[in-house]
């Protein structure tokens, strides 16, 4: 939910603008790629950080039992498969044999158990595993997990890249946070980490690919490495990143601004990639305050807003109009219940407003100082002025805004992006609204839907529950989704077979 987490890369719906990879080209082994990164990873201990910058690196070094495929569906990675008991409470994972850690040791069940136990204690998103009752090695290559209660999203959680539930060698997993040696089973091995400068990783020649995988598939699949090494260079300044890229010092930028992307577009030396959708732009209401606690008021706002105007101004070059609370192409994606999206109907808004208790008082829109978010707030402010709603902007840095935004007072509106949640799936999209976390007032309907989603093992039932949630979001205007926005990635034209995703994957690509 944090801004720097949002700036991660979407696997789904990634659109290649130029330099479409040509698989017919000869693959070539060797070469070093330098990636310009916005931020330095706070840690390379994958389990303890949910930072995007860490994920970019660690998902090359470590693997998980299950991982997300190209459509963000959990598929086996280090596990061969999974057997789920009839009551949905016992998961038996056969572990792949012959998998080697970077230190040459072979992976076994003890490593998995130790890693999962460690994550339950100090994992950055330990709540992902909160349903677990016991983790046991039930064979040299078999792990059995017992749950306290049924959790339909357990495999989603296990495979979440948010703060990956990475599998370490047991002896590393015994160490406290941030004190491990960076040893995993991934296709790259750790070389060096210079704080404030770079992380370097190199091809792990002892890598054992998943025999069942056929090709590159999301964060799972076949991971074939051609490059000798990859360096992640930390370059917080956009201008410096762009300059280094154009000077050829850096071969890939995980994100560039629209104008730069447009400027580079005509140049044959560069390939511009669009990751769209990358995140939702969501305007939240504070239900704990009048008048945003008033459903008629919220509906009035929802009816009046012109979402195309908001998205077009906030993300001029890279947006998508879509009212659904999942990314297009996601398994549960549906537009059912989104009829009230983007009505841009001032008259209807006025009528609804008349039914609310709003008396013209000044309302506070808190927003961080990211231009697109300020723009969203500004467009909303001007639009709502036309139906007589008086909105004032309160701009501050992200920490201040996010602090205020999770308290019941001091704000009425708040806007930010949701990037990783829709990628993770329905449960993660619903979670922020459970217990009134984001809207500051418990919504029993959402809480009930969330609970039943967790226990419903039937996929059709889950899809129906999610559609119900989506309808509820619109019918009560719990919050407003303005649309999807994306981001640009640029790479040198020499980087072949690159496919943009939330994580810049360095397997399956080669330098020409």
């Amino acid at each position, binding site marked *: 939910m944090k801004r720097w987490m949002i700036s991660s890369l979407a696997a789904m719906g990634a659109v290649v603008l130029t330099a479409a990879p040509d698989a017919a080209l000869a693959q070539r082994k060797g070469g070093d790629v330098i990636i310009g990164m916005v931020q330095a990873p706070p840690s390379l201990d994958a389990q303890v950080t949910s930072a995007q910058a860490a994920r970019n690196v660690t998902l090359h070094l470590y693997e998980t039992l299950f991982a997300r495929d190209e459509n963000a569906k959990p598929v086996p990675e280090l596990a061969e498969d999974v057997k789920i008991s009839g009551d949905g409470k016992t998961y038996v994972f056969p572990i792949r044999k012959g998998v080697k850690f970077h230190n040459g040791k072979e992976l076994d069940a003890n490593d998995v158990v130790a890693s999962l136990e460690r994550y339950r204690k100090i994992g950055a998103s330990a709540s992902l595993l909160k349903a677990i009752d016991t983790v046991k090695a039930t064979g040299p290559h078999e792990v059995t997990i017992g749950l306290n209660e049924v959790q339909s999203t357990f495999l989603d959680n296990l495979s979440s890249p948010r703060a990956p539930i990475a599998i370490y060698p047991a002896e590393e997993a015994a160490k406290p946070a941030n004190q491990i040696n960076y040893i995993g089973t991934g296709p790259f091995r750790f070389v060096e980490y210079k704080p404030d400068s770079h992380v370097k990783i190199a091809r792990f020649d002892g890598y054992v690919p998943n025999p069942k995988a056929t090709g590159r598939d999301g964060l799972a699949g076949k991971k074939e490495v051609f490059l000798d090494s990859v360096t992640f260079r930390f370059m917080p300044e956009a201008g410096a990143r762009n300059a280094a890229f154009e000077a050829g010092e850096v071969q890939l930028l995980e994100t560039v*601004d629209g104008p730069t992307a447009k400027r580079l577009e005509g140049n044959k030396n560069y390939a511009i990639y669009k990751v769209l959708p990358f995140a939702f732009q969501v305007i939240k209401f504070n239900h704990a305050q009048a008048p945003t606690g008033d459903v008629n008021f919220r509906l009035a706002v929802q009816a009046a807003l012109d979402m195309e105007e908001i998205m077009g101004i906030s993300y001029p070059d890279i947006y998508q109009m879509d009212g659904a609370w999942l990314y297009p192409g996601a398994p549960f994606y549906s537009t059912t219940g989104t009829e009230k999206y983007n009505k841009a109907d001032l008259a209807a808004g006025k009528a609804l407003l008349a039914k609310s208790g709003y008396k013209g008082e000044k309302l506070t829109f808190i927003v961080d100082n990211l231009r697109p978010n300020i723009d969203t707030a500004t467009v909303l*402010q001007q639009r709502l002025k036309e139906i007589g709603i008086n909105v004032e902007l*309160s701009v501050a840095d992200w920490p201040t805004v996010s602090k205020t935004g999770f308290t019941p007072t001091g704000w009425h509106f708040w806007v930010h992006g949701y990037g990783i949640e829709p990628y993770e799936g329905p449960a993660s999209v619903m979670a922020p609204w459970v217990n009134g976390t984001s809207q500051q007032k418990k919504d029993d309907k959402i809480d009930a839907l969330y609970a039943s989603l967790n226990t419903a093992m039937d996929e059709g039932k889950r899809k129906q529950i999610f559609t119900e949630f989506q309808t509820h979001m619109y019918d009560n205007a719990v919050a407003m989704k303005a649309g999807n926005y994306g981001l640009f990635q640029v790479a040198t034209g020499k980087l072949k077979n690159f496919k943009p995703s939330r994580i810049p994957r360095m397997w399956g690509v080669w330098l020409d």
Partner: protein
Amino acid sequence: MKVESSNLGISRANPAWQTLSRLFHNRSFMIGMSLVVLIAVIAVFADLLSPYDPLRNSFRTRLRPPDATFWFGTDHFGRDILSRVIHGARISLMIGLMTALLTGVVGTLVGATAGFFRALDNPIMRLMDALMAFPAILLAITVAAVLGASVTNVVIALAVATTPHTARIVRASVLTVREREFVEAARALGATDLRLLFRHVIPNTFGPLIVRLTYVFATAILAEAALSFIGVGPPPPAPSFGSIIAQGRDFIAEAPWITIFPGLAIMISVLGLNLLGDGLRDVLDPRMRV
């Protein structure tokens, strides 16, 4: 500057009249005054002068280059830059003026206290030295960021940054004035310290102070723009010169006009104030340089 025996009334011999007359013959002052009055008139009559609503966005007219309809072009909201610059003058000038006034009041009190009550001089001035050790603009950015974005907080932040130097100037003139005969005379007649300070000492420091505050005004307009640029300026959507530039930054290559025109407006305003300050300095405080 005080008229001691004014039985002549307003005459050519009147010092106030002489000062005015010297000001009117000072080229810097007159050019500066004309520019400042021009900008001030634009700010006051912004509603009448601006062709469009400066806040009204229009998706269809976004990023239009300057033409007959939109003389200064439009921004990425489709808002008219000319109207925004005209209204921007209002907020920028207000911030500058408020900063100058606040700095003037606080700086005078601090500087006069330090200069007049010798026991307090050292502690107060060391404190001012310490404040001056931080780069002024960084101090203003920090204070504005910590307090949160609003016009008031921007004024406070700028005043924090400009007060120490002002206090120093006031203190220096107080030190000279307090030794003058009329202060001694008033003291001999039994005037209290406070009365001396407010009736005799402070009024006689106004010359250098006014000159300083004119420059503070100019500096505040520049600093407001810098604060907006960093992202801690007055909040949108109401335009200030600085916030218009800040918003145009992402579009500098495709729509440079968003940035160019408010920048020119800042330059003209600040130039006017600097000229005004130079003229006032020549007349009111000839010893002070640059």
